[in-house]
């Protein structure tokens, strides 16, 4: 049985993120960009298909994204 905390989550390593913006392009609606180009993860991320999220993780040029339980 899975609990809320077990659900895989998209995490941003802010020390790596340079605001390239590929994640926002791949997950429009779920991820927007702030005034400086850095990603803002919105509540719609919960409804995004896990495969789309994994794709965003894999294309991040800064390797700043992780998708998992921890």
């Amino acid at each position, binding site marked *: 049985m899975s609990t809320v905390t077990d659900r895989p989550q998209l995490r*941003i*390593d*802010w*020390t*790596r*993120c*340079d*605001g390239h913006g590929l994640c926002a392009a791949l997950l429009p609606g779920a991820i927007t960009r*702030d*005034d*400086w*180009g*850095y990603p*803002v993860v919105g509540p719609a991320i919960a409804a995004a298909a896990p495969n789309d999220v994994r794709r965003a993780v894999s294309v991040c040029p800064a390797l700043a994204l992780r998708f998992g339980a921890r």
Partner: protein
Amino acid sequence: MTAVLDRASRSVASVPLGWVGSPRLLAGATTEDLTDYRAHLDRHGEPKWPDRAKLLSDLDAVGLAGRGGAGFPLAAKIRALRNSRRATVVVNGCEGEPASAKDTALLLHTPHLVLDGAAAVAAAIGARSVLVAVTDPAVQSGLQVAITGRPDAGRYQVRLVPDRFVIGEARALVEALDGRAGVPPGRRIPLTEAGLSGAPTLLSNAETFAQLAVLARRGSAWYSAVGTTTEPGTALLTVSGSVANAGVVEAAYGTSLAEVARLAGAGPAQAVLVGGFHGGWLPVDSSLPLSRAGVAAAGGSFGAGTVVFVGTDTCALAELSRIAHWLAEQSTRRCGPCAFGLPALADDVRALVAGSADVGLAQRHASLVSGRGACAHPDGAVRFVLSGLRQLTEELQSHRRHGGCGRPDRHQLATSRAAALNPAPIGGWR
């Protein structure tokens, strides 16, 4: 209470001390030379060495929480240690918060209490060494002399790390101790799993260990005789700002703001900043109980126990703006939202000082910073700014209407410990 300060080196040679009720940690510290190990034993008695089970039951009984600001229960940290025999005990004496001087005070004036506490933890968990990290060279040299007087002197190592605001953050400190830049790492791996040199690390604030030394000697029943039901014992407060006597005050948890104000000789104040520059601005409510729960109930954050009275004679909005810019400068600039967001937020506050009406701008920039960094700095800075704006509604109004409030910025929120401990005369000119 007169501070002896070496302004040139920003080093603090002595900290004024006071107390409400009976002092525990600070007992004897103003009249005896407790840096001498014999004098320390005469004052506090022989140290006690509880085993792991006894230590944990004492800690659980009083709910001893870390005194660095986050308030994490020490017992939970000890239980989380992956392999305690390989562990190092680290005493965080860095005190990045300029308005805090309690750890400096302990390490300068009663260092053996801190060392006893750290040694007791090390003995209980089977760890070999104790490392004390400090930023002030005067504290470092004093500690080294004190340690040579101890029978277990070989156990301790004192390390000087660069003085900066974020160094107080536990993981940033471990990075610095490991010879890397002292900035928080991107991934949050608990120090109890992988800390110093990758080994499990038990790190806590200097006051936490001093409290533990008292608890181990006296037992949990005695320890809990003062304080509140949920927060037994005393806490060290650093009181500064618009006061006649700035310094470190030991008081039972739950002591009212009025009692601390009386002791420090606080002048008329328009607000009080509790919990430092990551803390919150609160109204001057004389009945405010100074405890983690009491301050939280008032919408603030107890943090490391700093209490700064913001007098009616200073432009509080200019103080807020100056510290907002200082906080922006303290960003290590590794995380974009903090590096760009905090300067933008500080500029928004500066515009409000100049008479702008748009508080919403600051609120929007604040929302873009919160929760978007590798450490607690962006969130703490936002808490400081937003609580200030909420508290200073009259100030904001007079700046909007008249372009100012007619008062100068008296620097009651000081950005160095030396300046915080040596306040300008109340109502006087700096």
